[in-house]
Each structure stands twice: as structure tokens, then as C-alpha cells.
């Protein structure tokens, strides 16, 4: 996309096609599926954070009338599984299988140990009590820094740090990341000021409202269907088949409507259990997690400890930066330690830097992806250090960032040169925004921070079917979490030259459309959108061929314009244009139904930057924080459906502010989560936040036919540091540990 284009459909915001079904309750989510003869599965979970399983006796449960099956880890094929789970830090499938159901050890409180299927949910729950498990408890490893010490108890005695030469001794450190450039000593020597701080971010959950749920219906031949709440049903099928040693062709996975995922529904938890229980019983088995199970046993985002040192000249030039970040992985390797290392300095031109990151096992739930995995924690630390530097230098924090901003041609801190990017445009939009020109309310502080995510492409497929009246059905395989069906319809309408109202889109199951990777990484509008666009181009090529046949012209004498075939320039043909509807109506005479298809592995995703700022005030008597205003600015490349883009920006801001202000996993000394519910794990409610003002910057990604970069990940990154910086300025003390909850702030204010 070399130059600005005028669009007719793209850039409009039609009403979301799934909206009425969702607000009226008609939409079918994972837990809504009901089948004849269906029974119900429940999971027995570990009461210990760390223990050896000495024995599991299922006989008591199996003896209860109405209990159809009971399983434990011993029922699953053992050994290593090839491949990795989807989503950032998904981890090896070997580990994911042990996370689905424990084998010889339980590694966190809530780890699945056994499962039963019974005629009712209540009976299944009662039957769990009849299962006898003998444990030998072990000391839990709960502190990420202490876990890295040589003397620490081990979460996994077979875990050796992943180094080129295998270390002599096992460790809780699974992986180490390291990026460096230039000369740190010289860089810090050239600095006029140095800021050095330690920051902590807590483990935090994605907070999706719909719990994990699925129904499996496997017949006596071992074949069947699984309906589930997932960000990627193709990869759920693959993981389930490998864990159960089944042929993926024997399983059909259907993605139900999804009530939020944010990265947390990229890995399987219940699906292999339900599939095995269904196969054993010959009945459909439904499994639905309670909210408590979601908190105790599904992946949150890593808690982190980050040590940052940054040196700057008086004019604001960053001369050197050094960081050390320990990421909690939970019970299995897979913390986003590399994305953390790669994002922390990404917005800036840096000559001298070092960042070291660590993927550390602890006896807590295995972490999972959460929007822009690793970036919020890492960039929180650096963006806060920069804000303190701006205060010391008496510089506007946006000016300091403009002074150091990466741009096209800058060697990113993670390696390659940036192609065209929009960070500077975001900073300038922030500087010129009326909210930034407004005075800071009395007693409040204004925080500024930048955000970044790479965005990714990966594999997608789409088919476009033309109905006989010229309306269009798009079928693709990316579960719709953030409005992608509307975006696909807009891109199809724009490409075909027809109205949005004439296009429908649906998410096909694993037998109805080609492979698609998970909806994640801000890839769906970019990659699946490219597939839909190419499939529409396939349709146009076919329509031109049919029009040429109708008119007795050569194919290259026909063009496509505004949804109809027309003779090309200079072609002497006395014919009327043929619309898509006219061509579809005569399709039987020109070769049969019209359809297009495309499958691709999309490359060249465009990085997305953001700049957020907000005014926060702290009540010095109670520690309560009021968010007075908040403005989110982000480069979307091109907003296909601007209202959905704004929704992504507002949702990301709300989630980031929740992580900053109140959300945290609170474990006791035994490793038991003390706040496994939305009453005590406090996500923001409407009254906690002001209207999130948005401004969409559009610096087109030249690789995408419409300039799309992807927008879902970046919005959560900046809010953590915006909150910390605003509150630090409000109370005139630097705060470094999240969440900035009333008790923590009161303690800091009171010294």
C-alpha cells in the first residue's frame, strides 16, 4: 500500500453482527451446549502446592451409582509429545499434558489430579470426594528471586537451565534471555544522570468473564466432536489428539462463541479430559470450570521483579540502559522472558544496552499468554525509570521520548531495522492532543508512557462463497474475539466492490475450512484478513473469466470495478456491465457455483506503538486512586472498523489499569491462592474508570493490502506505567510495586 487510498467500506463502523445474539442471550457459548444423554465431568484438584502423588484410588468414585467413569494421569499415554502449545510461552506439549492432569507430582494448588463423569454435575462433584489420593508434601517454591538461588528447593528436579552445555545441576531457572549492544561502561560514563530502581508486578489473570467450558461427544469408533471456548480450535484439536494418541482426523473441533480470552484460551485444560471421559463412557461429556477453578488452575500472566538502570545526558539522550527481569513461569517453563527482553527498549534508539531475563519455575499455576505477553511488565519498569529521569531533567516526558524515538531505519533493540513505524506520530498526536494541553487538576499527577507490540502473521485460510443473488458468505477459521467477523465482511465488501450488508462471515469448524492458527498476537485482521482479501481476488478473477466468456472477449479485456465486470479501457464491446449478482445468477451456465479461496502464512506484520497519558489523584487519607482522565493513542496502520479498534484500545486500557491499581494473586505461605474470585480479585468496574479517550494513528503497514498492523495486544502495555508515573507525581514519591492499591499507597504515603 504505497499511497493513501479512498475506501468505501473500510473505515466505517457498522453495528457488530454478533451483538444482538450476545445481548439477548441467544449466542451459544461453551457452557450452553446440551446434547441428548449428556453427562457431566468434574476435576479433582490438588490441595497442596507441591507434593508427590504416591497413589490415586478411583474405586470409591466408580462404585457410586450414576458415576460413569473416573480417570487419573495414569490413564493418559506417557512419554514426550512432539510440538509446542500455541500462544506465547505455551510451552511444550509434554508439559501441557502434565498440566492438564498431574502424573507423579502436583506442582501447584489446584493442579488437576483426577476427573469423573457422572449423570449430574452435583453427583460428579460428590464423587470426587470418594477418590483417595495419597500425597507426600514438599516445600513450595513461591518467591521468584529466592527460586533462582542454588539452595532453593526444586519445582522440577529434572529441569536444567536451557544452555548450550547442559549445567551440572538442576535449577528452577528454565531459560535465560539476553540482548546487548554497544558498551555499557562507556554509556553510563557519558551520562549526566542515572536512575536505578527495582519494580515488581504481580501475577494477574486475564479476567475473561466466560469460564473454560467444553462438550465432547466421542463415539464407539473413537471419532467425534468437541465444542469448546477457544482462541484456536485447530490447535486445540492437535493438542488433544497428541495427548490422547489419537488421529487428528478423528476429531472435529467447533469454536463456540467466546466470552473473552486475551491469550488465556490458547491452551487446553478440559478438552483432553472431556474427550477421554466421553470415549470411555460413550456419552457426551460436558465440563465447565467454576470461577474458582479458573483462578486456581488456568494461566495468569507472570509476576515479575525487574531491576532497571538508565543513564541520560542533560539534553535527554539515553546513553545506556541495563535491565534484569525475573519472570514467574508457574509450574512449567514458558514465561514470556524473550518478549520481555525484546520489548523493553523497543521504542527507543539505543547505542548501549543490556537486558537479561529469566524464565523461573515456581509452585503456582502455569502462566499463559495475556495480551502482549511480557511487554507490560518489562516496559513498565523502563517507562517508569524514564519518567523519573524526565522529572530530574525537568523535561516534558513526551519530549524526552521524542528525543530518543525509534523510527524507520533505526536498528530495533531486538535486532533488525524498523521498516516504516508510527511511534513518532503517536508521540506527536499525544503532544498535540487537547487533553494533554488541559491543566493537570489540583492534587493530581499526570503519567505518560509508551507501549509496543510486534504483531504477528502466521497461518490462515478463508473461503468466499457467492450466493445466487450475489450476496457473499465468508468462511474462515479464526475464532471471533474482538469483532473479526465484521472486519472480514468489511474487507470482503471493499475488495469485491459491494455493500457490507451483502456479506456474512462465519467461523468454520475444523472440517469446514482450512487451518488457522490461534486468534492471538494481533494477527487475525492482518493475516486472516489477507486470506479473505486473496479469496475475494480469486472470486474476481473467476468473475472476469465468466464475463469474458459471456461477452466473447479475452480475459485480459475485462476489468472489475464497483462490484461488476466491465470491458477494459479501449475494448470495443457493446455490452452492459455484469454485476456480481448477475454473474452469480447465471453461474450454472458459466461453470457452476462461484467461490474463491486462499491459504497463506502471512509475513511482514507491522509493529504497533502506543502512547498513553492520564491524570490520577490519590486520596491521602484512604489511599484510593481516582483516574480523572485517560487518553490512549495507538498506530493501527489502518482501522478497518474504527469502533472495534477504539474498543480494543479502551479494553486494553481498562485491563492495564486494573493490573496497575488492584489486581494481584495473593498466595499464603503454603502456596494457596487467597483471592480466587472476582469479589477479592478486583478487576475494574465501570465506576472505577473515566471514559477512555482514544485517538487512532494510521501509519499504513505497506505489506497489508489495506495497511493493517493489528491492534489487540499493544493497548495493555502502557497503562501500568501511566498509572505508576501519574501516582508517583501525585504523591511526589516514586512508587515501584504494583498493584497501587489503597493499603500499599497508604503505607508509602505514611512512610
Amino acid at each position: 500500500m504505497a499511497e493513501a487510498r479512498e475506501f468505501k467500506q473500510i473505515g466505517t463502523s457498522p453495528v457488530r453482527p454478533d451483538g444482538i445474539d450476545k445481548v439477548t442471550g441467544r449466542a451459544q457459548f461453551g457452557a450452553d451446549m446440551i446434547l441428548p444423554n449428556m453427562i457431566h465431568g468434574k476435576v479433582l484438584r490438588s490441595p497442596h502446592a507441591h507434593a508427590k502423588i504416591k497413589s490415586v484410588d478411583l474405586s470409591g468414585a466408580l462404585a457410586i451409582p450414576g458415576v460413569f467413569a473416573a480417570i487419573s494421569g495414569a490413564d493418559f499415554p506417557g512419554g514426550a509429545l512432539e510440538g509446542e502449545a500455541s500462544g506465547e510461552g505455551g510451552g511444550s506439549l509434554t508439559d501441557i499434558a502434565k498440566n492438564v492432569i498431574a502424573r507423579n507430582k502436583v506442582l501447584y494448588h489446584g493442579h488437576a489430579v483426577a476427573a469423573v463423569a457422572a449423570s449430574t454435575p452435583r453427583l460428579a462433584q460428590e464423587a470426587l470426594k470418594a477418590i483417595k489420593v495419597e500425597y507426600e508434601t514438599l516445600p513450595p517454591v513461591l518467591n521468584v528471586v529466592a527460586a533462582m538461588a542454588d539452595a532453593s528447593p526444586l519445582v522440577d528436579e529434572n529441569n536444567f537451565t536451557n544452555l548450550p552445555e547442559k549445567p551440572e545441576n538442576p535449577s528452577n531457572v528454565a531459560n535465560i534471555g539476553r540482548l546487548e549492544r554497544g558498551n555499557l561502561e562507556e554509556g553510563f560514563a557519558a551520562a549526566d544522570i542515572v536512575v536505578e530502581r527495582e519494580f515488581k508486578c504481580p501475577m494477574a489473570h486475564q479476567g475473561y468473564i466466560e469460564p473454560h467450558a467444553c462438550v465432547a461427544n466421542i463415539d464407539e469408533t473413537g471419532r467425534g466432536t468437541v465444542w469448546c471456548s477457544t482462541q484456536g480450535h485447530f490447535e486445540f484439536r492437535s493438542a488433544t489428539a497428541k495427548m490422547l494418541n489419537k488421529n487428528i482426523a478423528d476429531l472435529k473441533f467447533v469454536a463456540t462463541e467466546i466470552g473473552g480470552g486475551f491469550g488465556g484460551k490458547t491452551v487446553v485444560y478440559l478438552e483432553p479430559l472431556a474427550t477421554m471421559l466421553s470415549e470411555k463412557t460413550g456419552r457426551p461429556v460436558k465440563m465447565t470450570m467454576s470461577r474458582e477453578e479458573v483462578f486456581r488452575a488456568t494461566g495468569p500472566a507472570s509476576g515479575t521483579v525487574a531491576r532497571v538502570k538508565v543513564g541520560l545526558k542533560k539534553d535527554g539522550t539515553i546513553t545506556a540502559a541495563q535491565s534484569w527481569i525475573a519472570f514467574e513461569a508457574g509450574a512449567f517453563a514458558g514465561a514470556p522472558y524473550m518478549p520481555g527482553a525484546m520489548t523493553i527498549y523497543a521504542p527507543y534508539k539505543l547505542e548501549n544496552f543490556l537486558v537479561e531475563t529469566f524464565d523461573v519455575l515456581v509452585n503456582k499455576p502455569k502462566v499463559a499468554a495475556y495480551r502482549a505477553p511480557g511487554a507490560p511488565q518489562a516496559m513498565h519498569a523502563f517507562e517508569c525509570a524514564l519518567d523519573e529521569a524526565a522529572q530530574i531533567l525537568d523535561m516534558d516526558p513526551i519530549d524526552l521520548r521524542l528525543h530518543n524515538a525509534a523510527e524507520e531505519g533505526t536498528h530495533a533493540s531486538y535486532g533488525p531495522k524498523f521498516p516504516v513505524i508510527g511511534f513518532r506520530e503517536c508521540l506527536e498526536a499525544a503532544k498535540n492532543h487537547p487533553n494533554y494541553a488541559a491543566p493537570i487538576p489540583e492534587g493530581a499527577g499526570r503519567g505518560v508512557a509508551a507501549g509496543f507490540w510486534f504483531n504477528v502473521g502466521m497461518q490462515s485460510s478463508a473461503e468466499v462463497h457467492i450466493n445466487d443473488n450475489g450476496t457473499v458468505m465468508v468462511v474462515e477459521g479464526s475464532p471471533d474475539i474482538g469483532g473479526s467477523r465484521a472486519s472480514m465482511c468489511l474487507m470482503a465488501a471493499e475488495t469485491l466492490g459491494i455493500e457490507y450488508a451483502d456479506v456474512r462471515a462465519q467461523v468454520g469448524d475444523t472440517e469446514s475450512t482450512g487451518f488457522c492458527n490461534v486468534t492471538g498476537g494481533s494477527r487475525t485482521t492482518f493475516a486472516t484478513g489477507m486470506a479473505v482479501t486473496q479469496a475475494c481476488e480469486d472470486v474476481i478473477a473467476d468473475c472476469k473469466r465468466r464475463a469474458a466468456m459471456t461477452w466473447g472477449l479475452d480475459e485480459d479485456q475485462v476489468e472489475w470495478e464497483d462490484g461488476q465486470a466491465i470491458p477494459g479501457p479501449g475494448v470495443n464491446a457493446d455490452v452492459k456491465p455484469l454485476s456480481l449478482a448477475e454473474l452469480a445468477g447465471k453461474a450454472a451456465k458459466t461453470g457452476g457455483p462461484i467461490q474463491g479461496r486462499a491459504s497463506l502464512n502471512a509475513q511482514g506484520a507491522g509493529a504497533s506503538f502506543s502512547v498513553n497519558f492520564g491524570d490520577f489523584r490519590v486520596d491521602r487519607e484512604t489511599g484510593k486512586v481516582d483516574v480523572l482522565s485517560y487518553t490512549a493513542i495507538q498506530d493501527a496502520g489502518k482501522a478497518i472498523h474504527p469502533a472495534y479498534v477504539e474498543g480494543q484500545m479502551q479494553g486494553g486500557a481498562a485491563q492495564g489499569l486494573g493490573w496497575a491499581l488492584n489486581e494481584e494473586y495473593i498466595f499464603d505461605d503454603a502456596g494457596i491462592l487467597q483471592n480466587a474470585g472476582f469479589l477479592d480479585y478486583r478487576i475494574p468496574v465501570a465506576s472505577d474508570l473515566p471514559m477512555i479517550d482514544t485517538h487512532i494513528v494510521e501509519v499504513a503497514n505497506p505489506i497489508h493490502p489495506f495497511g493493517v498492523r493489528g491492534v489487540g495486544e499493544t493497548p495493555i502495555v502502557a497503562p501500568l506505567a501511566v498509572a505508576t508515573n501519574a501516582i508517583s507525581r501525585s504523591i511526589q514519591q516514586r512508587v515501584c510495586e504494583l498493584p497501587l492499591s489503597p493499603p500499599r499507597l497508604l503505607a508509602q504515603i505514611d512512610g
Partner: protein
Amino acid sequence: MVKVVLSENFVALTGGCRELHLPVDNYRDVIAELITRWPQLEPLLERSSVAIDGLIYQDAMYETLQNDSEVFFMPRIEGG
């Protein structure tokens, strides 16, 4: 000559070599040359993304390279 920059986790396997210049005109030949020189790199290469002249590929294979192209290996990113 195409400039090839290896990511930090490759360096321990390449005897400290982080950057090299290769007389190749496509990405497949870059991979072949790297595996010939350092066979133990193969699994790491499988799990890496690569930036070719700034454009990030999750799975490159046959891409054409120019004489002044820069091929930069980096850890694979997926997101959430």
C-alpha cells in the same frame, strides 16, 4: 554479500560468531550454509523468526535476497 546476524542464543554454538557475510541469493541457502557450518544450530533455526531487510517472517524458506540484504535471526513471537 548478504549480511547475516545471529541471535544471542546462537552465539554459544557458533564459537562467538555473531555476524557473517554470505554470497547467497536466497534464504534457503543461508539456512543450508549455517547448518553446514554449525549443525547444532538446526533446532534453533527451526524455532526462530527472521527479519529480512526489516520485514519479519515467522517461517521463511524461499525468499529472494539482494546483494545488500540483511538477514536477522530473532526469537519467535506469537503473542496472546
